[in-house]
């Protein structure tokens, strides 16, 4: 058992650091100039990353990938997170659709879509959830009816990140209403410029507008945009959910949040003491650090499984559940540590960390809902890991 990187990996890391030193600074300078469209700047940054060879690390070279080793992937996610570099804007395309197409797409689909996912030329959003199908995703109602060499899609999707700016959308639709509910679902790729699509921003509880709702009204999607088999979409979607739930990159962002809290607690005064001088604040921060370390070493165990080619499987839900809880504990701890000033809004006298603690808190509340609620994760662990009987019928 060791956590050492090979000398080659360490060289790779050095190169990446040097690269970031130049390119990240340049990107930040451009972004700060102010007269650039932030979406365009984000696309440009993604293109830079892609051209540098720091995207699609696990993807085949023929589709623009790097075929890098897992340890190199770890190095990249560590260094990008530590440098504070923004994530590529097309994250959803890269982390969800890309692996799906590599596994289940036709050769034409791979060649057509994968390179443009990586270089940011085509931004993707995900059309899975519906107003009536949240935790019970398989009960989705959006219908696609075959009409010659097209599907005609009608229905509504919600909680779509990036829906306002995406060029394409990958969709789950019901193609056989008579089958068992998981059996009649197909996986489609849809150009967002197709007539009949209406997108409306949804404002979230924290006040931001990360989400959209999308309405499909007789939207015609060519049959060649079907991924995998007709009515085989549920299993395809499912196979990438586990990937999404594992991984180390979340740990580093949690670590950054915790460091922010730690710094705050040494700089904030509570009477004649600093916040961190209180026994209970120390206990709380220590507990958060312990949990962060536990999540980190769990991540290393998952990674070792991946290196050994063992699939993450339902155990990935352990990490997802624990990470979202930990994020919320950190978010809540911010209020405890900030004391009386926790309620002060940003851009106000005495506001703390320019409202960042509050933003962190509201963000954290979304983690136990999006991508499968914590209750669904508990179900999965109970059923698939512990082998307990199911708590409900489908």
């Amino acid at each position, binding site marked *: 058992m060791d956590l050492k990187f090979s000398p080659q990996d360490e060289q790779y890391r050095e190169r990446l650091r040097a690269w970031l030193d130049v390119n990240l600074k340049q990107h930040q300078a451009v972004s700060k100039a102010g007269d650039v469209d932030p979406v365009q700047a984000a696309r440009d940054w993604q293109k830079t990353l892609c051209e540098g060879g720091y995207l699609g690390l696990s993807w085949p070279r023929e589709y623009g990938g790097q075929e890098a080793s897992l340890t190199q992937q770890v190095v990249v996610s560590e260094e990008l997170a530590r440098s504070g570099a923004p994530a590529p804007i097309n994250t959803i395309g890269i982390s969800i659709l890309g692996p799906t197409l590599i596994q289940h797409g036709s050769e034409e689909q791979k060649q057509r879509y994968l390179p443009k996912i990586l270089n940011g030329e085509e931004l993707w959003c995900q059309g899975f*959830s519906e*107003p*009536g199908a*949240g*935790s*019970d995703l398989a*009960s989705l109602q959006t219908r696609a009816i075959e009409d010659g060499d097209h599907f005609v899609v009608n229905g509504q999707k*919600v*909680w779509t990140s990036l829906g306002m700016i995406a060029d394409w959308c990958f969709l789950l639709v019901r193609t056989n209403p008579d089958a068992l509910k998981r059996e009649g679902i197909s996986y489609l790729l849809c150009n967002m410029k197709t007539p009949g699509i209406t997108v409306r921003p*949804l*404002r*979230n*509880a*924290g*006040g931001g507008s990360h*989400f959209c709702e999308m309405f499909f009204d007789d939207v015609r999607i060519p049959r060649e945009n079907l991924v995998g088999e007709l009515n085989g979409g549920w299993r395809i979607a499912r196979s990438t959910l586990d990937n999404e739930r594992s991984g180390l990159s979340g740990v580093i962002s949690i670590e950054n949040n915790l460091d922010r809290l730690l710094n705050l607690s040494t700089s*904030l*005064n*509570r*009477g004649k003491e600093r*916040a961190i001088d209180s026994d*209970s604040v120390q206990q709380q921060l220590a507990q958060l650090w312990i949990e962060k370390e536990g999540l980190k070493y769990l991540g290393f165990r998952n990674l070792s499984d991946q290196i050994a080619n063992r699939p993450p499987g339902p155990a990935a839900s352990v990490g997802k559940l624990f990470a979202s809880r930990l994020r919320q504990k950190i978010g809540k701890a911010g*209020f*405890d540590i*900030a*004391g*009386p*000033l*926790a*309620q*002060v*809004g*940003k*851009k*106000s*006298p*005495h*506001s703390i960390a320019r409202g960042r603690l*509050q933003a962190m808190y*509201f963000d954290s*509340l*979304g983690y*136990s*809902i*999006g991508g499968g*609620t*914590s*209750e669904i994760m*508990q179900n999965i662990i109970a059923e698939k890991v512990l082998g307990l009987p199911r*708590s*409900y*019928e*489908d």
Partner: protein
Amino acid sequence: MHFELSEEQNAIYDLVVGFMADKWSGDNRRQGLDSYPCQIPGELLREIADLGFYGISLDEKSGGGGEPLLTSALIAEAAGGSLFPSIMNTTLAAAKALDLCDADSNWLAKVISGQQTVAIAIEEPNGCWGLDSIELTPQMDGQGGYLSGSKILVSDGDFAQVFLVAALLPDGPAFIRVNANAEGVEINSMRRLDGQSIVELEMKDVRFEQDDVLGDGATLNQVYDIWTLLIAADLLGNAQSVLRMTTDYAKERQQFARPIGSFQAVAHRLADIQVDVEIGRSLLYGACLALEEESDEATALVSAAKAWMNDLGVKAAETGLQLHGGIGYTWELDIHLHLRQARSNAVTLGDSKYHRARVASHLMSPEY
């Protein structure tokens, strides 16, 4: 022995709930988030004043309604559950404060009738709560003195014409009356997380006269306890509303071909909040009675109620948000308004840790 609400109290509670349901909604509060501070139509404020809420727990000879303190707490509870702003609590507390300080009856009448808003300024920028942390000390002369320093987190300071500023005088703590438009006063909005009005009050050589000094250490303690209890009541009402909303949603919302409220993961968490609400209600009644009867345990019970309600308010709103799923995480649903209000009130006049520490000193006191 009878430990339950009177018919009048039940009627007043229902009245406030119904009144607010007609006149106030989450949209009013969303406005306060988009363009601080949350505004209340003048007519609505007048109606509230006319209903006699503000003075309801004052003696009839002070122009009040002669009801016990609990009646004010019930109004605060109903207002909190309706997302009605803090001006209700602030004014209930201010009226009590003026009465306890034997303020001029005309002044008190102005406040009760809603013609003047009085804000109470206690906290200072030292990271602490409570009267023990007040450091503001005026320069005294024969006829009065000068105040210099700052107060923060002053509720409804954007609307107040007058501030009761808690300060350390030679004989101990007291309130000093400071007019909002007095020379040397600067008021800076602090934009509470829930869009409500809190301000920083900067004072530079602000002149006050001897008769601007009101109350003493004991009065200030009473005011602090009463106001704390009103905010605890607000938190209780908030939790009760979230519980009701979420229970209703859990009965309606179908997933896996069943209402989600039939899943124990949902049902048991709502049951736990029901338990906590009942305990909170019991603590609120107990603390009101103890304050009324001037029991030795009154302060400890007020802190018990506030500590409990802080945790309850936040837990209920966070749970409600989670159990609503994606819809709970939207701007349009009122849950985040309840959460913002709970989070803000939970650090107003003392967080749970502060109030548990007050309880602990009671437990360690020789009288216990």
